[in-house]
């Protein structure tokens, strides 16, 4: 007769005598585990579809731009750019949907399923947890935003008429501007998204709350800018500082500062006096506020 399912057998026990990492290893493991989960690795194919589809979608403009460059390389339209490196950082806003799904998935189940006491029984603190989650999402966003830029840069370099070396020389500034802008963009969305997600145990609520926050803030800012006069809000020359309230615009204006040294005059804040400083202050306030809230939220285990 077969023993019942789940019976306990005496198979002995072997003590572990291999390598053990310290706290650094535990922190790195938390980042690694968070990245794996976000990318759907070691999970069912359904969890893999979204992240990898979005990466593919985010890369499409780069491929199209390179294709157009190739086709027009010997024509008067050779200098036409479908999209610039600066604008491509904005295209990465398509990743907002990915952020709205991934950030809640990173933190909400841990609280909902009460996994936190298990995590904090390891050599990890609330600070480690916050930095690992924000760091993991920042790293993924950076990769997903940076890789299409690499495709755009390398693709153009290979197909332009003047040759790769000339293209590289002419666009040397991009080599630092793109990583810096993309890093700032990624840190902004990762901090804000994880902070908003940490307010709830439900993933759906976290995602909706993030999208609502950024879109409502954008709508409010647009309305207030329009109320200030001077025509359609998105094309206000010398717009006003109410545009700073748009949380969805902040990382784009930060990119303006990296690439142009000033805020795009066709944006909500336009050429308003102090717009650049205002953007920097809003950026710092959002990131610092989000991280501060998260550190407070996870200051002690449940």
């Amino acid at each position, binding site marked *: 007769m077969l023993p019942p*399912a*789940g*019976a*306990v*057998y*005496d*198979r*002995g*026990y*072997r*003590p*572990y005598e*291999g*390598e*053990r*990492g*310290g*706290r650094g*290893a*535990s922190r790195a*493991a*938390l980042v*690694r*585990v968070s990245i794996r989960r976000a990318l759907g690795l*070691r999970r069912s194919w359904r969890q893999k579809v979204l992240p990898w589809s979005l990466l593919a979608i985010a890369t499409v403009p780069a491929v199209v731009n390179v294709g157009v460059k190739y086709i027009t390389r010997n024509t008067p339209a050779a200098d036409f750019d479908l999209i610039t490196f600066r604008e491509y950082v904005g295209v990465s806003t398509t990743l907002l949907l990915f952020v709205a799904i991934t950030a809640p998935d990173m933190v909400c*189940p841990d609280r909902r*399923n*009460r*996994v936190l*006491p*298990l*995590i*904090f*029984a*390891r*050599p*990890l*603190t609330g600070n480690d947890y916050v930095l690992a989650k924000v760091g993991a999402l920042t790293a993924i966003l950076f990769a997903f935003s940076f890789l299409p830029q690499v495709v755009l840069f390398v693709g153009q370099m290979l197909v332009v008429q003047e040759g790769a070396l000339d293209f590289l020389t002419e666009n040397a500034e991009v080599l630092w501007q793109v990583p810096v802008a993309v890093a700032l963009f990624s840190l902004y969305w990762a901090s804000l998204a994880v902070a908003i997600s940490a307010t709830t145990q439900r993933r759906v609520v976290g995602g909706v709350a993030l999208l609502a926050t950024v879109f409502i803030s954008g709508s409010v800012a647009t309305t207030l800018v329009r109320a200030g006069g001077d025509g359609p809000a998105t094309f206000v020359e010398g717009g006003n500082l109410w545009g700073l309230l748009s949380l969805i615009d902040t990382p784009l204006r930060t990119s303006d500062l990296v690439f142009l040294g000033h805020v795009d005059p066709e944006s909500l804040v336009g050429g308003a006096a102090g717009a650049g400083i205002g953007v920097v202050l809003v950026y710092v306030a959002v990131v610092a506020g989000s991280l501060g809230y998260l550190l407070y939220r996870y200051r*002690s*285990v449940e």
Partner: protein
Amino acid sequence: MADDLLLRTDGLSLRYPGGTLALDGLTVDVPRGSVGLVGANGAGKTTLLRLALGQLRPTAGTIEVAGRAVADDPIGVRAHIGFMPEHDCLPPDQTAADVVATLGELAGLPPRAARQRASEVLDLVGLDEARFRPIGGFSTGMRQRTKLAQAIVADPEVVLLDEPTAGLDPIGREEMLSLVGRLAGFGISALVATHLLDDVQRVCDQVVMIDGGKLRHAGATQALLHRTGALRVEVNDGAARLAELLGAAGVAVTVLDDATLDVRVDGDGDDVVDLLRDGADDLGLALHAMTTRRTSLDELFVDEPR
């Protein structure tokens, strides 16, 4: 520091911000092995476990786990401790193998070693067949065994088990107690927090009893049972008068009816027997029967004067 101790506390107190005094000057040395931490709900058991994990800072006093002062490195000490919480704490959408391997990695094991260890310990707890199934489909017993597996995946020196048999049916309870009882043989000392004294009697060689944050008893389980027995005394009548006489002499007595009483015995009990014999004689009572019986931990816990 004492390396041969599982736990040492000295004047350990913790008052929560709300004012509740969870532990009140607890001083105890607990040797390695299987140790039962017994107390009613709210006695301070879970608080003591959280202090051992460095998750709470004591209001006063010190605590050492496996010879390491928690205050010196409250985070690092966790590398040597496994913890099994009382409540459900496993993600239902992940497999047992993934959860245990992940928690092994978080304890500092390299990824490949963590997966290997997860496989071994899940095999050990009887989940070899089920380890690739989502935990959401597990029975309570399988979940408890998964929780135990994650606690020992990194081969800790000490595991803190909070109510390991909670919610289990008799078969699941037997399996869990069997596993807990084997931990000491693996070189893992276990501190088993429970309010089920029978569990402690069966698998723990040491017992620490706390009540209202204070120490009630600490020592070897068998010695405690041997030391604290009872005499069932039957007299022809006047049990109450005999009880009064014994009580005046400082002996704990429970009157069951007019002719029967239980007399608490500490140590070999010769002095109590002498007192009984002389007292019955003085009162003119006939001693019909006097039988010894060992006190279960339950009775000890309930009957002990506070």
